[in-house]
């Protein structure tokens, strides 16, 4: 087991290095750089471009250096824990991530909890009561949730709330609480805003979980061990939860680790439409403005989260599925 983990971690380190190169390379691909993107943004807003500033900053930030030199510099700083500096936000990258990671985590965890709390019971129900009215209903709505893009759903909810209440629901806080400290009022205010992204993210993700769980469970339900247990008079609910559901969850558990990187990326468009103060809009902004250090750090961070998530999934699988545990030992 320990050796298994050690092996995985070694592979992860190599993967991270490759990943860092690839993401730095991709961010550099489009023509221009962070300075010209900044100038273009100013110009689009009707402001004069300030050409004198451009050359000076480009020189000073070393943006005229060859790609590989820039990359190695960045990597060296990363190794000593310096994530670099965001030109676009004029702040150290670590400070930016720090200021937003908490709220991102909170929203995403809420959404995922709600997602699983809705999807797993429905999946089980759909399998056990196959072709019942409830199953049909869950299937239809699951597919609608899957088919409608998240941002569209977000726009729709915003529009409906506007039509019925005349207010614009945006962000996670009202203006009066936005820069305030946590208090009961702020929590209530937060809850009155957060339900929209939670509902949007949950409905979008529920359908695949329902379908996978349903299909796997259907396979299991007719297996001889279930029939035997049932014949021996085992209580139905206990029987299903303890054995077939556990097996049916395996493919879902295998992907549970992928939830981690979604903390940053899952709901980019939703977050922008809804104006959420999370890391997602920052990631998009940094990519659009070719803000190397910020975008690089965020993408690398996502990559590392994916790798860690995969490791977590493997460990969970080993715990849930004895066959894998045995495979590791040998």
């Amino acid at each position, binding site marked *: 087991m320990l050796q298994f983990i050690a092996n995985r971690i070694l592979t992860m380190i190599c993967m991270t290095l490759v990943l860092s190169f690839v993401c730095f390379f991709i961010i550099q691909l489009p023509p221009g750089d962070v300075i010209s993107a900044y100038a273009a943004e100013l110009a689009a807003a009707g402001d004069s471009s300030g050409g004198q500033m451009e050359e000076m900053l480009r020189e000073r930030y070393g943006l005229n250096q060859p790609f590989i030199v820039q990359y190695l510099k960045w990597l060296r700083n990363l190794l000593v824990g310096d994530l670099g*500096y965001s030109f676009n*936000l004029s702040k150290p990258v670590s400070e*930016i991530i720090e200021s937003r990671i908490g709220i991102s985590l909170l929203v995403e965890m809420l959404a995922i909890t709600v997602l699983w709390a809705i999807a797993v019971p429905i999946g089980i129900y759909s399998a056990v009561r196959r072709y019942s009215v409830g199953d049909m209903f869950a299937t239809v709505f699951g597919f609608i949730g899957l088919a409608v893009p998240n941002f569209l759903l977000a726009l729709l909810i915003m529009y409906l709330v506007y039509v019925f209440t*005349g207010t614009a629901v945006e962000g996670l806080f009202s*203006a009066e609480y936005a*820069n305030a400290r946590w208090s009961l009022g702020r929590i209530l205010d937060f809850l009155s805003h957060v339900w929209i992204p939670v509902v949007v993210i949950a409905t979008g993700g529920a359908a695949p979980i329902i379908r996978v769980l349903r299909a796997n469970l259907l396979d299991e339900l007719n297996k001889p061990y279930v029939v035997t247990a049932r014949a021996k008079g085992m209580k139905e609910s206990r029987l299903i939860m303890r054995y077939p559901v556990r097996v049916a969850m395996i493919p879902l558990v295998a992907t549970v680790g992928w939830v981690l990187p979604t903390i940053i990326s899952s709901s980019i468009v939703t977050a*922008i*439409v809804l104006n959420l103060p999370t890391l997602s809009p920052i990631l998009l902004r940094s990519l659009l403005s070719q803000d190397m250090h910020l975008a690089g750090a965020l993408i690398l961070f996502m990559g590392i989260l994916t790798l860690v998530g995969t490791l977590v999934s493997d460990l969970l699988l080993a715990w849930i599925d004895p066959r894998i545990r045995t495979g590791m030992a040998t």
Partner: protein
Amino acid sequence: MTKHIGRLCLSTAVLALAAGAPALANGYNQAPMLAAKVDAGELPPVEDRLPAEPLQLEAPEVGTYGGTWRSTLKGNNDEGWIRRSANYEPLVSYTFNWDGVVPNIAKSWEVNDNATEFTFHLREGHKWSDGTPFTADDVVFAINDVINSDSFPGERPPALLGAVATAPDPQTVVITLPAPHSLFLEELASVAGPQVVHMQKAFCSQYHPDYNPDAEKNATDAGLSGWGEAMMLNCGVRRNRNADRPTLAAWIQQVDYDGINTPVTFVRNPYYFKVDQEGNQLPYIDNLSMTQVEDANSIVLMGIAGELDFTNRHIDNVANKPVFFDNQEKGDYHIYDTIVADMNTAIIQLNLNYDDDGFRELFQNKDFRIALSHGIDRQEIIDVVYAGLGEPYQAAPRPESPFYDEELAKQYTEWDPDLANQMLDDIGLTERNGDGIRLLPDGRPISIRIDTTTDLGTYLDILELVALHWEEIGIDLDVRKAERSYVYEQKDNNQHMAHVWKGDGGLGDAMLDSRYYLPMHDESAFALRWAMNWKDPNNATRQDPPEEVARQLDLYKQMFEAADTETRDDLFRQVLDITKDQFYTIGVSLPPKSYGIASNSMGNIPENQPHAWIYPNPGPMNTSLLFKRQ
């Protein structure tokens, strides 16, 4: 011609400025939130906070104190809105109509005879928002130590480069320019101008190596490129990242504008130097709240939900107007008009310096250009592209401008294909090919290629109609869509046959940005080689212009050296007379008015205010006069 500007509701506000502030017998009034602080002993009384001679404004309606002005910032580089709304406090300010300059932070000024030395008088007792005196020293620091340092990448008003400031006494600043500049005051009043009075020396000098030996090290330790960037971030008008900077503006920023904090909030400056006609210290409004959004559609949604009090930023396009119009009642707001400073929707420029001999000689023939102008059905373009809004117009100052010349604006704008055909025949272009296209004397068809950028769609709509119109007079306009950088590369290398762009320089920017009135600018695409005579006489691509054009350039130069505004304006009219005679470019139509949205609870909303980049709408209206009705 009616002068639209006559209906300006705030025009009186600026007329009263020059009169200075008569001492008010019954003293000054202040906001309740400040009065409470004075009573608690946290603030000196209002008389001690105001300068000895506050700037008195004539409010269209005397307002009430309190309330919050809500608006938005898009992304993290939208400091333009902060500069326009809260921070437009230059030394001298544009008038509301953009037809002159009036006192603002400086109470008066003198100019020497050859427009090289400008003396400004500051207000005695004028204080920064932290209560310390604002003196000539602060201005000298800004001009000599920061703006004129090549290490400073922030806003460096071009007119101030090479200028030297001195402070004979704490209330007097003398700025000496390296060359005469009769438009220097206009430059100081422009959007770049506030940088001069944006920097409290006591606070900002901590970022300057001459005053703080560690400044450079502190900056690089913080991950910045050097002290200049630290100065820009903390004390520049361009990036308002430090809320601790003391200010002279009506409101004090409360949190850094860093793309993370939302909303960016402001609270009233107890030391603000303006009062209304009843002696009430301004501003009326207590707080500003700018919500940071990611997407312009969020602004629209907040707007129709009545959650914005006064803005035109990012939303004032034709597509949004019906949405705002339909929801006015529900959102309890209304639409107000603004005047776009551009004088034309599209200026078609044939390249008079084109390298090909046959076409260049044709383009330089004024009758050819007149014929083409008569060949455009402008009313159809206005109806199809601009929903009937606008009027046929050439490259000429707008009707609101003091330089408006009806003949210049309207010459050759009637659609008359018969006359156009006749003129082209008279030039000798009688031969045609099988498609009915006229031929050059050397036998080539007259096919004019014009590349236009795809990101600005209306040029394409306009040119496609022009191409249809010109087909009738036997001229082929070959309209091509191209990426913007390609179009610019062609133009910058003089490879373009023709070019199209909107009409800048229609209002108060006419004299500074005269790109269509004479060849003087990178964007004078009709004659870039002649323009070199003005902007870069040593450039190898420079060509001698014809005699009349040379005379025009000379008049333009004299204009900058003029000692008084009357002579200056008169010289500019002479420049425009030559523009009229030369008829360099072909204009299409006057752009329709633009708009913004304002809550019905906001008072003193400006109607028909000009809107441009260097005139930072709504700043020159004095936003401190806005108020919230109770």
